[in-house]
């Protein structure tokens, strides 16, 4: 019963929000963070392999 209504508000807020503020800086920041994690992990993994 309440479901369609819930769905509608969901899409509404979604539209409103993504229109309102750009978060492209956030996306770039978290991806930089992600690449740092990958770089660190891969470095130590190769150290592990090197020492086998």
């Amino acid at each position, binding site marked *: 019963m309440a479901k369609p209504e819930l769905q509608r508000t969901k899409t509404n807020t979604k539209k409103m929000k993504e229109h309102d503020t750009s978060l492209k800086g*956030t996306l770039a920041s978290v991806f930089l963070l992600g690449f*740092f994690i990958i770089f660190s*992990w891969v470095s130590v*993994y190769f150290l592990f392999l090197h020492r086998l």
Partner: protein
Amino acid sequence: MMNETVKVDRRDAKLALAHIYVAFIALALGGLAGLLQTLVRSGKFQLPAGISYYTILTTHGVLLGLVLTTFFIIGFQFAAVSRTSGTFSNRVRFWGWVGFWTMTIGTATTAFFILTGQASVLYTFYAPLQAHAGFYLGLTLVVVGSWISGFATFVHYARWKKEHPGKASPLLTFMAVTNMVLWLVCTLGVAATVLIQLLPWSLGIVDRVNVLVSRTLFWYFGHPLVYFWLLPAYMVWYAVIPKVIGGKIFSDSLARLAFILFLFFSIPVGFHHQLLEPGITPFWKYVQVVLTFMVVIPSLMTAFAMFATFEAYGRSKGATGLFGWLRKLPWGDARFFAPFVGMLFFIPAGAGGIINASHQMDQVVHNTIWVTGHFHLTVATTVVLTFFGAAYWLVPHLSGRVMTKAMNRLAIIQTVVWAVGMSFMSGSMHFAGLLGAPRRSAFSTYGNSPQALEWIPYQIAQAVGGTILFIGIILVLVIITNLAFFAPKGETEFPVAEAAEPQERAALAMDNWKLWIGITIALILIAYTVPFIDMIQNAPPGSKGYKLW
């Protein structure tokens, strides 16, 4: 929110402040111990009067890892719950004080046995090293005291829910309750090993102890312990920092979801501290490695939420470009700057944590000083700088004073000093660890081994970093003392942010404790039942106690 008070009631403030005082006294003493350790390990200094390095190390670990954290967290959470869910009843406050005194007496007891050299077993107290029974008894009191405070929080939360039917609990209260549920579930493990195994054994009631069972129960507690430290920092990040900068909470319901995920995945993961030990099959280690990786997810969510909060605020102030919003942040405000630097340090800290938990890769870093470097980023930078940043408004709010501009400037300097000192200390610890330098060891050249001689420059860098950090501790103690006793009288705000778009329905659905606790217990049973039964069924002969210090 009818019950919301803008100011924490004076009587609740006193209770919170008492906890915070003990926390900062622990910081002073534990910090001094840390300074001495780094000096000893540089190879250039020796402790006077025959004091043992390991007595100092035990003091450092217990005072900073257990006392500073637990006292600050409970004090902060009491204040946050009182602020967001209304003044405590006399009964709740009474039990809060009972909890405080139980923990304080426990701390004093434990400290006595450590400082008199009867318990140089480090803060992990691995059997069969056997401390004086008073050490275990004191720790029991600390844990029991925290339980009493936890239940006092639950009673207050239940009353709020009863008075506000159909309403979602205030975010900070919800988070404090989650953290105390996490704490209660995980401390059952350490309580079990101390009360059932170690206390009777140290009193001579039983002769022998099952070492692996004891370690497993300890680490069942030991990893959620670090999340018990981290979650209050996340509380500040999610619910306070947006208000400090003048923005909004990015998403109230996703913040709650992150906390519930921490509750699920921070407990059934203790084996990642036991990856290199005998008696546990690789299969069960790997199961817990997978669960450990799941606990990364709520931190990924948090990283996004923080950047999004900052960017949304910066853009609302007209920032343009990819990173223009960074310039709009209040860099001169220590309430923001200290936690922000803490957040930055969590990036290498998190990367290191994923490496540590990566099953066989642990062979590269296990019990090397890399690990010490790792948790000095997590708890001793991310968590502690956030706590300092919170104390800069919490202490004057509770003491009825205001932070002067001069003190704010000193707090900014303090943060920079901390960041520099920690970069030296933790950075060199990470590199020395990769070369094999062990943690928890006094200075040694291992018989003039060429490898060990290579570590010495890194150890000197650690002493430099440790010295800078000790200056940081002196600065923060000056600031806190000022804010508690000497700053000008006045009103300081307890900042609590609002959600960008309130999602009452989603938030209300999060107050489903029966379900959350049920899932938590189910995950613990899945991760631990089979290997734990194996340990007991295939147990070797137990161990007598040893006092080897």
